[in-house]
């Protein structure tokens, strides 16, 4: 007897399922589909990729840009003093137009310094050597390997740049939900509770709180209702410059004839200064047990 309609449909259905299942299962076993898609789309969402069919992304990396696979910061705490730490904070906040708000409930911080017991909460004990009690430990965003903030962001406003591992904020997309602030175990993120850069009138430069200095005209300001944090000076790296805080430390070190307190470099490059520092010194990281893989190392 020949193939009747019922039998034909059965065979057709089964063979379609079988043909689809083989490549799908092997692909699933080999890679995490989300990671695979992310890589395929270069960090854009599928919708954006569709848009790009009509709207091709432009531009290329500037020739003078510093490139690396995974940027890291090494803080040599023994070389730090209050003066250098304060200079780092001041310069970073001036360069990036970080609003200076005195009210601690509204304050915005990209880089700041704190005592050992506040920075290494899990590793503190009351008999720690006296000299560590009041050393200014510089803290900033850790640009984690596996950032919790990126995972929770509903709009992909915060994302990990695949090429060099920097965790960045796209303030154009931030909707101010503050999930990232709840997720970040390091308190590295600040929310703009009040208008950070009020303008007196259209056509004038925004000024923060009358009488204070005007913003750096080369960097944008922001609006009320967005979250912000350290960006490892991504805009300076693109121009071939090292992060502003590291530059401050290098200048201070030259003046005082000491080693620079901050070092910045590519962890993936075995000949880099940071690899050499980490190889020859004992270093610790903040809350490594949480598994986020922080990329700021402290030599103590």
């Amino acid at each position, binding site marked *: 007897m020949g193939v009747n309609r019922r039998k034909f449909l059965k065979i057709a259905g089964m063979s379609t399922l079988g043909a689809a299942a083989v490549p799908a299962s092997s692909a699933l076993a080999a890679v995490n589909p989300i990671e695979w898609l992310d890589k395929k789309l*270069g*960090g*854009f969402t599928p919708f*954006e990729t569709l848009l790009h069919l009509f*709207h*091709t*992304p*432009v*531009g*290329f*990396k*500037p*020739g003078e*840009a510093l490139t690396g696979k995974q940027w890291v910061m090494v803080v040599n705490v023994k070389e730090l003093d209050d003066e250098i730490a304060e200079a780092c904070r001041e310069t970073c906040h001036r360069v990036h137009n970080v609003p200076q708000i005195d009210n601690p409930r509204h304050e915005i911080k990209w880089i700041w310094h704190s005592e050992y017991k506040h920075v290494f909460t899990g590793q503190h004990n009351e008999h720690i050597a006296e000299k560590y009690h009041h050393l200014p430990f510089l803290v900033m965003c850790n640009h984690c390997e596996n950032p919790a903030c990126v995972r929770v962001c509903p709009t992909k406003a915060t*994302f990990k*740049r695949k*090429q*060099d591992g920097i965790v*960045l904020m*796209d*303030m*154009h997309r931030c909707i101010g939900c503050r999930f990232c602030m709840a997720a970040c175990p390091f308190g590295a993120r600040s929310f703009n509770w009040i208008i950070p850069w009020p303008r007196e009138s*259209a*056509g*004038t*430069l*925004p000024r923060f709180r009358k009488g204070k200095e005007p*913003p750096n*005209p*080369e*960097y*944008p*300001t*922001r*609006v009320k209702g967005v979250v912000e944090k350290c960006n490892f000076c*991504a805009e300076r790296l*693109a121009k071939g410059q090292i992060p502003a805080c590291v530059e401050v430390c290098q200048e201070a070190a030259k003046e005082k004839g000491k080693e620079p307190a901050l070092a910045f470099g590519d962890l993936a490059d075995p000949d880099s200064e940071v690899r050499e520092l980490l190889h020859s010194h004992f270093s610790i990281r903040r809350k490594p047990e949480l598994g986020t893989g922080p990329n700021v190392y402290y030599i103590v």
Partner: protein
Amino acid sequence: MYDGGKIVAGIIIGVIFLTFPIWYTHGTADPRPEVKLPEKTKECVQPKAYMKTNHMQLIDLWRDSTVRVGNRSYIAFNGKKYDMSLQNTCMSQDCHANKSEFCDRCHDYTGVVPYCWDCHIAPEEKPQAEEKH
């Protein structure tokens, strides 16, 4: 057709009613605004016609490229290299330093309110320029 006259009259009245805003305001529009082009620089990153119609798409692409990918250099149609930056390239002193007479004239005329300037810093203009306008 039953009641043909009424239907045709109804259609005519309907068409007149629906097109009322078009013919009633015809010819009463304000004259097209004249934007003040930069004096020092004569060429933009794309031909003038493209920039007129597509500058918003271009700026959007620049934003995506610089913020998300980190590609900050752009080769213009004439082969020149530019840093993709609204504040430091487009609005630099050599180019569109006069926002109120360039951007704002068209945007005000067409009722477009781009929120670029909520965060990005527009170049500071001398008060005289404001008065002339």
